[in-house]
């Protein structure tokens, strides 16, 4: 028996061994859980930490004189916490919000559907209605105590001080999948600039989002800030933009272009700053804000007159006779013509074999300056013909053409100028290869003669035409046109300060300036003449399938020019009909800061002169 007891005493080692084994296994398990894997930590963090985005205020936009154009306005989202929205008087709620019972039921169903709303939780705020105006909100706020589980979340939407410059300002809308794909800054529901400077200056305007790290419990309820907000990042507000646009000038331009298709672009030649950029028809930017944005956007998109299209930079037009200035400069620089010694005949046009390019009646033959002033087609056709067939200078027509193209490109044609707006068209300047393809290598100066007068294959944007004006005003260079004068706290991009010199020397420009001056004094643009300052101008009457387009390009004053302008009125007829008077009014407005009484009356008459367009075209 004693032996038996001793034998049993050894069992303490078995029991002790069991205890040691259990604890050892548990410590090994702890080791594998706590030290072998980071997954648990990540899991716990994603459980507990809710990174809530704090949205910065978007930068405001004002015009060159400091007039506020775009700012933020508070809007209100109505949020619902399903779990708290009990014993709800649905009828009362619907009446207070001006919604129907059906809409309410449908909305609740949408919110609760995890397929459509993956972040749904019964315990957290979900958007019930978005972007209520201050008035709608204040009337609801008074009654809100009656609706448990309903909350208000303040957001901000864009607001416009007036209804001008929609194309330049652009708009903001919710990001699409492509935006999120392209830049991981964005999350679903964020806003992004869609058009205009809102888009091109998106990164500056949007600022930097902040985050606050909140603690979230198992039911999704917020339980305070992680480490009392030590790791939170405050949002950085967006930068304010100052546009180079003069909103008064812009407003006048939009007035004058009422009922007409086309564009007005004005540039300050010395800086490349765009003073106004009218594209007609335009639209009211207020339409692109708030809950009606989607609907309004669709309506505008379906409009046959394409009001959303910014014709000033996206429309490509034959420049017509305004283009002759560039030809004169090229021929002068290449020595094809001499400023006073060369005269070309013109008997109601350019005749070569069976080809005729018509011209209006004027004295002939003419030297350069009167040729510009009277816009003689014959002169420039002969000029191009002589350039293309000058075998002393160029081995073949291709080489001559390439040379010609280089001049055109140096004047800012054929490629995007690089304006700080989305959607710029590059226009069209043909080159030798193009004609080789088109005419299978068999072509000469005569074949392509119409490009000399801004017809044929040549196409420019109104911006490029205005930029041509600026180049002439500057006697040989341009600065890339831009609509943003300054971004708050930033230096202006060197892209918009660098001078681009053309291939033509300044002395040759003086002849063209003189020609344009003569056109105002006694040529095609006499309507632009004024005693207040010296205007230089050039009309254009661009042929197209329908009625001719009315074009004007000019600048003023002749010395130290303040404004270079292009006016393009689709199907407006002769340049002198719409282009010249509209251009004259615009220059007067900008240089004098206002219109004289007579000019005001004139402006009113132009405002009311509408051109009838069919509904099928464009």
């Amino acid at each position, binding site marked *: 028996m004693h032996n*038996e007891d001793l034998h*049993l*005493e050894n*069992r*303490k080692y*078995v*029991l*002790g061994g*069991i*205890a*040691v084994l*259990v*604890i050892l*296994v*548990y*410590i090994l*398990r*702890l*080791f594998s*859980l*706590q*030290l072998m*894997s980071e*997954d*648990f*930590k990540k*899991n*716990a*963090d994603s*459980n*507990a*930490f809710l990174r809530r985005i704090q949205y910065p205020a978007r930068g405001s936009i004002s015009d060159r004189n400091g007039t506020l154009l775009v700012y933020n306005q508070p809007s209100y989202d109505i949020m619902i916490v399903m779990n708290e929205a009990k014993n709800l008087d649905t009828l009362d709620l619907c009446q207070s919000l001006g919604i129907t019972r059906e809409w309410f039921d449908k909305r609740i169903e949408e919110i609760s559907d995890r397929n459509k709303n993956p972040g749904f939780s019964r315990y957290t705020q979900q958007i019930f209605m978005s972007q209520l105006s201050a008035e709608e909100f204040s009337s609801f706020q008074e009654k809100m105590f009656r609706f448990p589980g309903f909350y208000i979340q303040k957001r901000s939407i864009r607001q416009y001080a007036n209804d001008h410059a929609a194309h330049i300002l652009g708009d903001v809308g919710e990001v699409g999948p492509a935006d999120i794909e392209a830049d991981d800054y964005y999350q679903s529901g964020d806003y992004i600039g869609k058009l205009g400077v809102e888009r091109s200056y998106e990164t500056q305007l949007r600022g930097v989002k902040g985050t606050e790290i909140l*603690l*979230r*419990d*198992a*039911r999704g309820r917020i*339980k*305070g800030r992680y480490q009392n907000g030590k790791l939170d990042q405050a949002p950085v507000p967006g930068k304010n933009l100052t546009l180079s646009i003069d909103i008064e000038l812009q407003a006048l331009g939009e007035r004058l272009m009422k009922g007409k298709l086309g564009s007005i672009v004005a540039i300050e030649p010395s800086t490349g700053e765009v003073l106004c950029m009218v594209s007609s028809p335009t639209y009211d930017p207020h339409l692109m804000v708030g809950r009606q944005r989607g609907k309004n956007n669709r309506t505008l998109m379906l409009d046959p007159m394409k009001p959303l299209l910014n014709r000033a930079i996206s429309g490509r037009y034959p420049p017509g006779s305004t283009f002759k200035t560039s030809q004169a400069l090229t021929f002068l620089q290449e020595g094809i013509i001499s400023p006073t010694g060369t005269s070309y005949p013109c008997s109601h046009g350019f005749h070569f074999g069976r080809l005729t390019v018509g011209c209006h009646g004027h004295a002939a033959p003419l030297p350069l300056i009167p040729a510009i002033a009277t816009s003689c087609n014959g002169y420039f056709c002969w000029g191009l013909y002589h350039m293309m067939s000058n075998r002393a200078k160029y081995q073949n027509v291709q080489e001559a053409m390439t040379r010609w193209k280089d001049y055109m490109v140096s004047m800012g044609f054929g490629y995007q100028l690089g304006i700080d707006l989305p959607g710029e068209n590059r226009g069209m300047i043909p080159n030798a290869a193009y004609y080789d393809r088109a005419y299978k290598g068999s072509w000469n100066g005569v074949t392509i003669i119409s490009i000399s007068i801004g017809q044929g294959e040549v196409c420019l944007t109104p911006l490029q035409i205005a930029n041509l004006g600026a180049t002439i005003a500057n006697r040989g260079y341009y600065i890339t046109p831009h609509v943003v004068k300054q971004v708050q706290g930033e230096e202006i991009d060197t892209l918009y300060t660098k001078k681009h010199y053309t291939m033509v020397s300044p002395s040759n420009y003086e002849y063209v300036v003189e020609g344009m001056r003569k056109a105002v004094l006694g040529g095609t643009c006499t309507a632009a003449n004024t005693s207040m300052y010296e205007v230089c101008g050039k009309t254009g009457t661009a042929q197209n399938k329908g009625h001719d387009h009315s074009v004007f390009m000019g600048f003023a004053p002749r010395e130290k020019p303040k404004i270079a302008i292009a006016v393009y009125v689709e199907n407006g007829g002769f340049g002198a009909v719409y282009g010249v008077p509209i251009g004259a009014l615009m220059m007067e407005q900008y240089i004098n800061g206002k219109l004289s009484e007579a000019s005001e009356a004139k402006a009113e008459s132009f405002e009311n002169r509408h051109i009838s367009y069919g509904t099928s075209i464009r």
Partner: protein
Amino acid sequence: MAKVNENKGILVSLDWVTIIIYVALLALGWMSVCGASYDFDQAGNIFSFDSRSGMQIVWIGTSLILGALILSVDERVYETFSYIIYIAFLILLFLTPFLARDIKGSMSWIKIGSFSVQPAEFAKFATALCVARVISAFELHLYKNKDLIISALLVLTPMVLIVLQRETGSALVYFSFFLMFYREGMPGSFLFVGVAAVFYFVVGVRYQDVPLLNLPEVSLGTFCVLLGIWFFTSMMMRVYTSASKPFLIVFGTGFGTTLVAFLFSEFVIPFDITWVQLGFMVMMFSYLIYLSIKDRLISYFYIALFALGSIGFFFSTNYVMDHVLKEHQRTRIEVLLGMKDDPRGAGYNVIQAQIAIGSGGLKGKGFLNGTQTKLKYVPEQDTDFIFCTVGEEEGFVGSSIVLILFLCLILRLIHISERQVYRFGRIYGYCVLGIFLFHVFINVGMVLGLTPVIGIPLPFFSYGGSSLWGFTLLLFILLRIDAARNRMKRN
């Protein structure tokens, strides 16, 4: 004078090592309750009596007073009154379901004033005292079946009463008395049978529907269990009988037939080889009965009984799983065995508990910095799942220290029990350490995802007065009995 000396004697011979471990566990436990009940929202005072952590200070304080009271009572009182205490608690346990309010399906809490008390927590020490008294007083020897049955009945009676209160977790704790039975002479094969039963259950259920290699008609679970029965049986023959030839026959033929059947099924005609195994089982059983008659050895008969019982147990578990258990009980077992992945359902608690512990890393997130527990991702965070807070806030270092402290406590209690002069003290000591070991084993194991989710508290850590007082009572009565060992020797 004599009384003063006696009291001084108690303080001198009191086991201070245990006291230090006890106080350390209480302190760590209180920190964990602070962490688990702390609310980021109302970052209130952790000492406020409005908070769980503040109330836990009350429970700790009263436990210390309770401990001091126990030490000041003569140790013979516990032995003397053990029957009365036991019977009183049996009556209380019997009455509890009639007096209790339903709390989450459990009928075990009696409301006294503004507090609720759980008698089941206190019945453990009463049962331990009574079993110790009966075994020591009547000189029971637990290798005798009759004595073992008497002892087992004393344990199973309160257990059944607690099951009737629908507190299955607390009832299972009474299985820990079998550790004491083992120490006092219960055959080791009983413990082995218990382990074998768990093996049959886990492997059988877990791999029931998994095919063996590329044989779709063979259940891997059945195959392994039958293989296990053959292995256990032949090993028992090796250990419990002296003749080696029958062992070699059973071991060899079992291995041979299984291998041949497997190869035939694999390369010739696929068929369910568990039928061959079952056939072998029948032959093995017959052979053992034959041996027991031929050699007149009762051991062969017991081994045959073990084999038969194993097969019966295995097939009945499958039957119980499929036909007896309710859907939610079945799901719970399936999730526990890793057969179902159900992060929002039955497995949610266990997954969140592991995330909490795993996120603690080496050094933990620091006191009151745990997010999993405070933001209520872990259920029952300050009671049954309190170890999550230790893991999350104190990390691998802290939780290992806690586990090692528990191990030290248990080993120290073995030491204390073994040094008792009287059998009563030793038996009581083994009951206490068994209960502690069982609680730590199940509670920590459940949080670590190693044992089933059974709602029992972690001693000195889980929030609540009843469990803390219950454990203090258990421990300090042992310490009081132990402190008297010198005087007993003197007498």
